[in-house]
């Protein structure tokens, strides 16, 4: 559904309906779109190849200095591509809420 905060007095709408804050879609929690499962990475099996990071349509893996990748539940929509593509099967799709 359309974001409620699209409502604003007409004088406050930026010129021509332009969006002035680049990349402010980050404020939107697409993680709410997960309904059934989420990916969980087994650090033992992970070889830091970055497939989960480069194949994620929602950029829901944040590279860490030590080479591992942190899963970001705020954005992950639970599609399961990362689990499918992980060469070491280190990522399992686990039921939400557990």
């Amino acid at each position, binding site marked *: 559904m*359309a*974001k409620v*905060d*699209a409502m*604003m007095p007409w004088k406050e709408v930026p010129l021509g*309906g332009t*969006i002035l*804050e*680049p*990349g*402010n*879609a*980050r*404020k*939107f*929690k*697409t993680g709410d*779109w997960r309904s059934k499962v989420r990916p969980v990475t087994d650090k033992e099996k992970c070889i830091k*190849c*970055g497939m989960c990071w*480069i*194949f*994620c*349509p*929602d*950029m*829901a893996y944040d*590279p860490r200095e030590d080479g591992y990748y942190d899963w*970001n539940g*705020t*954005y992950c*929509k*639970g*599609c*399961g*591509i990362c*689990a*499918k*593509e992980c060469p070491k099967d280190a990522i399992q*799709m686990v039921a939400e809420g557990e």
Partner: protein
Amino acid sequence: MIADDLKDFKKFTPKTLPREEPFVSGHRACQGCGEVLALRQVAKAIGTPMIAVSATGCMEIISSPFPQTAWAVPWIHVAFENAAAVAAGVESGLKILVDKGRIPKKEIKVVAFAGDGGTADIGLQALSGAMERGHNFVYVCLDNEAYMNTGIQRSSSTPYGATTTTSPAGKVTPGQTTWKKNLPAIMAAHNIPYVATASPAYYLDLMNKAKKASLIKGPAYLHIYSSCPTGWRHGADLAITVSRLVVEANIFPLYEIEEGRYTVRKNNQPKPVEEYFKTQRRFAHMTPDMLQTIQDRVDRDYQRLLQMEGMTNPAVAQKEKPKGATAE
């Protein structure tokens, strides 16, 4: 000559991929969208400074629900059929403002993004004009093989036999009755310096081609396979699976055309096309003779590509002896 444009081009390796994300999280694409993944990889490879131009379509809608935008770079969308023309205006405007000293000289990459409908159908005229005029920009066609934003209607890029809401599998006609329009060949016919096809499963190949396209002075065209779970009726986790299979079956061969010279990624032991069609319910009604028709034509088209390479790029053609299917 693109050789000097690319003289300091260094290929990406898995460990040297840029961290920057010109396109950020929070966009409203469906779960497991292959097109937004392709877009992300292209934007990441090209990097900043960049000005992005979108045609109307899924990527434009999911990335700009006012007041939020997934674009961290300057972005403009005007209409469905004019991404190439708007990009031409942006590029011309930047060039003249630099010439007149009104803005500092900077290598700003102008990149147009459109779907297959926006490119092969309604936007073809503006695209042809911009290419012929030689504007310095990259045009990226994210091909999800139908009009997905309006609810999966057929386009000229919908593959033969696929069902869509306007090419349904009926008793008389079994889905799309026409063969996929060959956009890369049409773009090559404009004698532009760079044309390439890519698939997000082969992300290094894709990102290297995107980088090369952005470095080349003049127009460049990227045609990128973009899977769509909603429109193709496949699992949300299969974007990369189908993006790899389509290449392994030679249905979507990967190649570059640099100043008319073809360089084809060889795959002389392709998987049967049926293995690809099995993964998506849009092909569920495929009959054996349709499969055979497709297999024959896929094989023939692949041979033609090799012949084009032989004619236009003999050095490369000889160098590579035919080998088995090469994984990335």
